[in-house]
């Protein structure tokens, strides 16, 4: 310890609070070198880069916001168009349904009218046929009656056999005439 202390005393560095002159010089040199290189040359560079980075990020954010706004506007536009198209489609569907119903109703009515017309025509035809048949029958019956009466009256005095033959003949004629009519 004594040896160490004498060593210290010899070098003049006994008190740790007393700076060595050469260390002061080296300290100044070291500090100046760092100050010039790091402080004066490099710090402005990184500061410039940091500003640029901030701008780049802000620019990027702005761009992203713009893109998002644009996308939102497009989306809204598409949604509006879609809603409009849906509306239009439903409107068309409704219209078509109405038209279809109308057409169906019209057709039904037409068909019913046609059916009625046909039935009516058939009725008229039947009535006409009946009238005709009736008229024909009436004239035939009259003629036949007169015929039969004249024959009965004309041959009344003849015998029963003739009478019977007359009747038979009449009936045959009637039959044949009716067959002819048919």
């Amino acid at each position: 310890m004594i040896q160490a202390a004498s060593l210290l005393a010899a070098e003049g560095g006994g008190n740790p609070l007393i700076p060595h002159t050469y260390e002061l010089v080296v300290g100044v040199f070291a500090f100046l070198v760092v100050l010039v290189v790091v402080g004066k040359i490099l710090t402005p560079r990184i500061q410039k880069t940091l500003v640029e980075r901030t701008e780049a990020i802000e620019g990027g954010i702005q761009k992203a916001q713009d893109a998002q706004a644009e996308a939102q506007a497009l989306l809204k536009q598409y949604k509006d168009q879609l809603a409009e198209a849906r509306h239009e489609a439903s409107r068309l569907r409704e219209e078509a349904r109405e038209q279809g119903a109308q057409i169906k109703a019209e057709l039904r009515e037409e068909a019913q009218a046609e059916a009625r017309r046909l039935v009516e025509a058939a009725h008229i035809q039947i009535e006409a046929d009946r009238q005709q048949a009736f008229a024909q029958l009436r004239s035939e019956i009259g003629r036949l009656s007169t015929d039969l009466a004249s024959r009965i009256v004309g041959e009344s005095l003849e015998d029963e056999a003739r009478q019977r033959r007359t009747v038979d003949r009449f009936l045959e004629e009637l039959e044949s005439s009716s067959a002819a009519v048919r």
Partner: protein
Amino acid sequence: MSTLTLLASGDEFTPPGLELFDLPPIIPGVDWFTKPVLLALLSTLIVVVFCWSAFANPKIVPRGVQNVAEMGYMFVRDQVARPFLGKDADRWMGLLLSIFFLVWIWNLMGVVPVLQFPVASHIAFPIVLAVSIYVLKVYLGVKHQGPVGYFKNMMFPPGLPKPIYVLLAPIEFLSNMIIAPFTHAVRLFANMFAGHIILAFFSMVGFWFLFEKLTPLGAPLGVVGVLMTIAMTGFEMFIQFLQAFLFSMLAAMYIGNSLHAEH
């Protein structure tokens, strides 16, 4: 290592003292070229090379070393410069970043294996930085507040009852003009000085009781010494960072006070 053999030569354990800080010239005959001087210059080289590789050609999207150095830059800017300098922070970042990096690397030399000597434990180095800041502080104060205004703002803050100034003015003058630069340098120096002694003490305990004089009774003490050396090395690294931070923070505070009169 020469101090170690010197101490271990006796039969009794001698705790390390001031001789730890008295190192012979590395090259005999070249008196100025000692270990602290070598390490101070080496630290300068490390800071310059590190910062050059990071910031010489900085990219907007940082890679590798630039990322690491930017963390340091951001730390100094957000924790040191901006709280004390506000909008003037960017103008003084060069100085504060240089001080922070240089002091930190100086301190870190205390735990780098083989080197193991904190440069700032020699008071000359903190004095250089503290005096530089002191000169800058006074210059800026006189420039921005005027020669009279600077001392008036310092010693006679407005809004106090008149008799108080009799007491306050000398205290403020003393504290700002004499004590502040002294404590600025000594705080860093003393922390590194004490830290180095603590590390040397515990490692010497371990070395003495486990290698030099291995006895059944002394061995556990040696183990404690080794464990404490490891623990204190971690703690010392924290202190080294803290002191670098504090030193640059005080520098920022002094500059800030000179730019704008406080109180």
